[in-house]
């Protein structure tokens, strides 16, 4: 494994009585794609928010590019964040702005590009997420899947070194999902971007990820290179993978079985 660009050390987080992260250690390798899977409500989004410093752990440390984001000053945190782009699970678009203005926001704030250059760059990323020509569309007029992709475009518009995606594929049709997967692979290969992608879609994870981590009950249940992860013998992982593996059985004429997760 190459040098970790993000490291979590003994990170614990509880909301009241609800323990969400319980002494989590995790190393995200630089320039590669790591997928995080796990049942709904186990704290995947919470984990991501610790990495960008939006949430503060009750215990433990989070290092991003060697900087401990749990202890740095606010000013330094803002510097570290400039190398990160994040897609929020719900898109987090600004409703009062057009699609293009949403994506242009980081460019307007952190570059000195002219309006024409900004527009060109935004059109370019819109193209990349297969939403050409939507620059002037009000965000309120976007579908769920479109909002997701606009959030995605906004996360990558500054070409950050680290990209955090919270469920980039959810709500997308299989073809668009494929496009996003290819986009991730291409950006990783050509620009050396580090991706950390939360997903429920094992097929997509298998395509894009070099490593997969599974979060379960506040712990990292398994973390391994993709091929190895898919062969994991951990019962929790097996049950989680089951559903996707069952698809073969279904198409072969067998009745689909519902996996049980707790």
């Amino acid at each position, binding site marked *: 494994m190459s040098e970790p660009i993000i490291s979590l050390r003994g990170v614990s987080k509880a909301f009241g009585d609800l323990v969400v992260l319980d002494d989590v250690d995790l190393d995200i390798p630089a320039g590669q794609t790591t997928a995080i899977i796990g049942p709904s409500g186990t704290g995947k989004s919470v984990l991501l928010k610790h990495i*960008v410093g939006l949430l503060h752990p009750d215990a433990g440390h989070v290092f991003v590019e060697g900087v401990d984001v749990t202890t740095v000053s606010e000013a330094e945190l803002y510097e570290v964040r400039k190398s990160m782009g994040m897609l*929020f699970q719900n898109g987090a678009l600004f409703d009062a702005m057009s699609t293009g203005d949403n994506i242009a926001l980081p460019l307007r704030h952190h570059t000195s590009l002219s309006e024409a250059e900004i527009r060109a760059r935004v059109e370019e990323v819109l193209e990349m997420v297969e939403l050409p020509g939507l620059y002037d569309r009000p965000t309120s007029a976007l579908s769920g899947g479109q909002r997701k992709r606009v959030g995605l475009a906004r996360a990558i518009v500054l070409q950050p070194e680290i990209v955090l995606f919270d469920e980039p594929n959810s709500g997308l049709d299989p073809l668009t999902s494929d496009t996003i997967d290819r986009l991730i692979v291409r950006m990783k290969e050509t620009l050396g971007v580090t991706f950390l992608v939360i997903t429920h879609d094992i097929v997509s994870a298998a395509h894009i990820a070099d490593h997969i981590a599974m979060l379960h009950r506040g712990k990292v249940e398994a973390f391994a290179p993709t091929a190895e992860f898919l062969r994991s013998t951990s019962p929790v992982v097996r049950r989680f993978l089951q559903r996707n593996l069952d698809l073969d059985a279904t198409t072969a004429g067998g009745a689909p079985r519902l996996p049980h997760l707790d």
Partner: protein
Amino acid sequence: MSGHVRGFARFVGRTASRAWHHPIPTGKVWEQAWFIGVKAMPILLTMTAFIGSNLALQGYYAFKALGGQSLLGMFVSLAGVREMAPLMVAAMTAAKAGTEMASQLAVMRIREQIDALEVMSIDPYTWLVVPRCLGILIALPALTMMCILTLIGTAWLVTMLQLGESGPQFLHTAFGALTGQDLWIALFKAAVFGLLISLISCYCGFRSKPGPRGVGDATNAAVVTSAVVCAVVNYLISEWMYA
């Protein structure tokens, strides 16, 4: 409660430090000032017009019994300028602009838009809070001036047309009683109220709990808290300036 006081103090500290150290988004400041001023104007001027009319009526009947109708102008201008105009502006602004700030920011909070700004290294205090505070700081003194003129204007009309008293005499005592200091204090009050309303409302919005219920509670807390705080501060300023 004490948690809120501490949280609010930190919020104010951050806002002040951003306003001081960061470049101020002047475009957004004027946008807010315009927004706050223009939106509040119709309701505010209507309310103050009828407060002016009633100050004239009540003053007239109270003084008439003592044979002091000539003091009417003075009564209207002192009560109106020193107390009513700034308080009315504060109340209406808390109800309109304040609730709007609180609900807008609360929605942004629960939809993770404020988090998104932070992750994009766009400071939400500089971008969202500072323009609202400075915008209101521009809008409120202007609104207060308009209120003062409207209030004295309607009182003058009522005095002349309804009560049949001398218009010029009313104006003479009204403006004779006013000093420049009264005007400055009124504008100062307006500015202080504006800052308080915007800071309290933005704070309530920022602290919103998730869900529609959270937004409703934040908006409610904003208007109640800022109205009460403004009334108390008004008393303190009057006590300090006029005692």
